[in-house]
């Protein structure tokens, strides 16, 4: 047990710091366009230096580095410290690129990876359907070969950011006569065509971050399929595996907690800062315990990955655990903002001028975390069945979709 980095890694940390000092200055008072361009230019330099998209080969526009979780961790730490731009939070980068690297044909890699990594192509995820949520393998959106094209009919839902995306990677039923899991193909689809309608869905927070996507004789070339016909479920599992094996750091919860601390300094109870209230201190310390538990678990996971050990059950627990932290933070904030709880959360345009009602966005948004990407109850099934070996339920319904 040694939480210090070896001299070789400390040397690497110095390199990263020197790079950040030279190439990244926090933009102040810049308009959005200037800032976006500065970030893009910086990302390109960071890719060249091998700090971003490390596992994407150079020929596809990545950093092209050997896997090394400790270096990756140092980069994350230093970039966050400097508040420098990191890899894009985009489905294409996080889910499609690793899938293409594993299953894509050479031309697909060349055509799609570099521009996705460069932030030119944005991808929507086309997995869930109105009738296929937790039971994802029951998707019914149909794809049929007509000539040299797939013709697609049906509907996808919860596609985050689809209104801003050019493309979609989707699970489409192409082999209706095969058993449920074997009848699905993983198709790439251009969203900008007459057969496709994208309709943003307004969420309970008032914002619209995800969409419904309707397919009405939409078309995609027959070779825009990743893996073979009927292999889509398997191909998508490798994506989810990547998603799950991604080390669950505590960064997001830590940032949220820092905001909660600010609230506790500014909100007042009986004329005193809430932070001095004994009950508030108890709850803050309680959340701190959970947060530290998550942080040190991630240290352990990183160490296991560095030693090529399987982290096992703990990696199944991260999502549900951090969801609970987010909800505990939201509940404590609720108790501090008093009547601001009656106000609608501000939208992005007047966010800066809003008061404590900002926290209503977290109060409702934290519910979304318990649903998106596999509900907490489904996560609990997975922990119990795969992690603890407690009996798998016989799922009702047959194996046909």
């Amino acid at each position, binding site marked *: 047990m040694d*939480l210090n980095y*070896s001299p070789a890694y400390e040397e690497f940390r110095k390199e990263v710091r020197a790079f950040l000092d030279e190439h990244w200055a926090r933009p102040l008072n810049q308009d959005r366009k200037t800032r976006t361009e500065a970030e893009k230019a910086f990302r390109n330099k960071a890719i060249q230096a091998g700090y971003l998209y490390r596992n994407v080969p150079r020929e596809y526009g990545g950093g092209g580095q050997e896997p090394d979780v400790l270096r990756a961790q140092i980069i994350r730490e230093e970039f966050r410290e400097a508040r420098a731009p990191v890899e894009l939070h985009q489905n294409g980068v996080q889910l499609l690129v690793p899938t293409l690297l594993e299953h894509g044909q050479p031309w697909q890699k060349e055509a799609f990876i570099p521009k996705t990594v460069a932030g030119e192509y944005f991808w929507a995820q086309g997995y869930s359907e109105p009738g296929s949520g937790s039971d994802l393998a029951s998707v019914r959106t149909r794809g049929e070969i007509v000539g040299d094209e797939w013709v697609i009919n049906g509907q996808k839902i919860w596609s985050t950011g689809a209104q801003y995306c050019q493309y979609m990677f989707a699970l489409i039923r192409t082999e209706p006569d095969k058993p449920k899991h074997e009848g699905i193909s993983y198709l790439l689809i251009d969203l900008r065509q007459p057969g496709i309608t994208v309709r943003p869905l307004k969420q309970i927070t008032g914002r619209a971050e995800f969409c419904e996507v309707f397919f009405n004789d939409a078309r995609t070339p027959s070779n825009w399929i990743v893996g073979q016909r009927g292999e889509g479920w398997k191909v998508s599992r490798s994506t989810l595996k990547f998603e799950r094996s991604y080390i669950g750091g505590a960064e997001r919860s830590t940032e949220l907690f820092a905001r909660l601390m600010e609230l506790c300094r500014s909100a007042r109870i009986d004329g005193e800062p809430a932070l001095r209230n*004994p009950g508030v201190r108890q709850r803050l310390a309680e959340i*701190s*315990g959970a947060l530290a538990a998550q942080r040190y678990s991630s*240290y352990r996971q990183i160490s296991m990955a560095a030693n090529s050990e399987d982290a096992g059950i703990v990696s199944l*627990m991260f999502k549900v655990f951090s969801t609970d932290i987010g909800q505990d933070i939201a509940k404590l904030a609720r108790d501090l903002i008093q009547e601001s709880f009656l106000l609608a959360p501000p939208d992005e345009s007047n966010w800066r001028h809003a008061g404590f009602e900002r926290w209503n966005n977290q109060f409702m948004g934290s519910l979304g975390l318990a649903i998106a990407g596999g509900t907490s109850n489904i996560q609990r099934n997975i922990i119990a069945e795969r992690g603890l070996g407690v009996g798998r339920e016989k799922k009702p319904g047959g194996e046909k979709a």
Partner: protein
Amino acid sequence: MNFLLSLEQKMLQDAVERAARDVCPLQELHRHVDHAELTLRKRAWETLAAMEVAGLCVDEAHGGSGSDLVDAALVTEVLGYNAVPSAFLGHTLAVLAIQASQDEGLKQTWLPGLAKGELVGTVALREPDKGWYPDDWSMRPEAGRLSGAKSFVLDAGEADCIIVGMADGQLGLVEGRTGGVQCTPLDGVDRTRALFDVVFAGAQVHPVPAAKDAATRLVDAASVLIAADAFGGGRRAVDMAVEYANQREQFGVKIGQFQALKHQLANMATRMEMSRGLYWYAAYAFDHRPLERGHAASLAKAHVTEQFLQVARDAVEAHGGIGFTWDYHIHVWLKRAMFDWAWNGDPKFHRERYARLSDWQ
């Protein structure tokens, strides 16, 4: 950066696990709990001593293995998993106090015997109606004699030496079972730990001169070890509940197939598994990150013992009626969880201490 156990540490845990299973199977544990016999405690202690575990935190010059607190915590986890009644906790704390002292004579007198387990040590921290930490200690020796009372002292009846917390964060050593030391056993809820009220009536006390923060280090070490015990105990409660869910049948199926129970088990397992790093870190910080020692110890003590208590309650519930009987063994762990929660400061105390140390104002 390597937040994992070494091969030696894994082997240490395995060895203690095998020994614990051997010396403390469930039927022996029942006999101990039902009749409060000393046989099991005695055999457990002899076993641990033979494995050189009693001297884990004694340095090599005085006949021990010179290990960090982490190793003692790892052993405590395994003892907690198996609910082994033994003097290990109090003994290890006494060892740490003497080891940290600047009096070489005192070390030579006590450490070799304690390292072999021929002598048993313990610590007396809390005074009646006061707190556990040094600020609340008020006894002052007069002309080398100590008078006053300490409560909830582990294993005082069998201890050869008692490290006593005194005013101004001073520590003293009183020989056990001598004149002027009166030990009254308490009817503790957890029968796997022997608790005593101790009255010192002009008992001879040797000062244990040490660095200024020695007393706080001592109680922090206690917090770390209790957190480790709670992690082990909680893990066992989860294992027992899982095992029962895979065995018990109702409505023609194993009850583990019912989603309500499955989710409860998943929550229990998550509570415990995510606590592991917290106690590891507290143990690591104790020796390697002095500035974080107090924070980490208090956070781990508060969090892990609270998880253990909840998980133990859930485990009783998951067992149904049988779990509520004295004859079944799950209550042993529930009561250990109650001990871990309250001994050396409850979560409320430790969370407020964490808030103060974090400078929240």
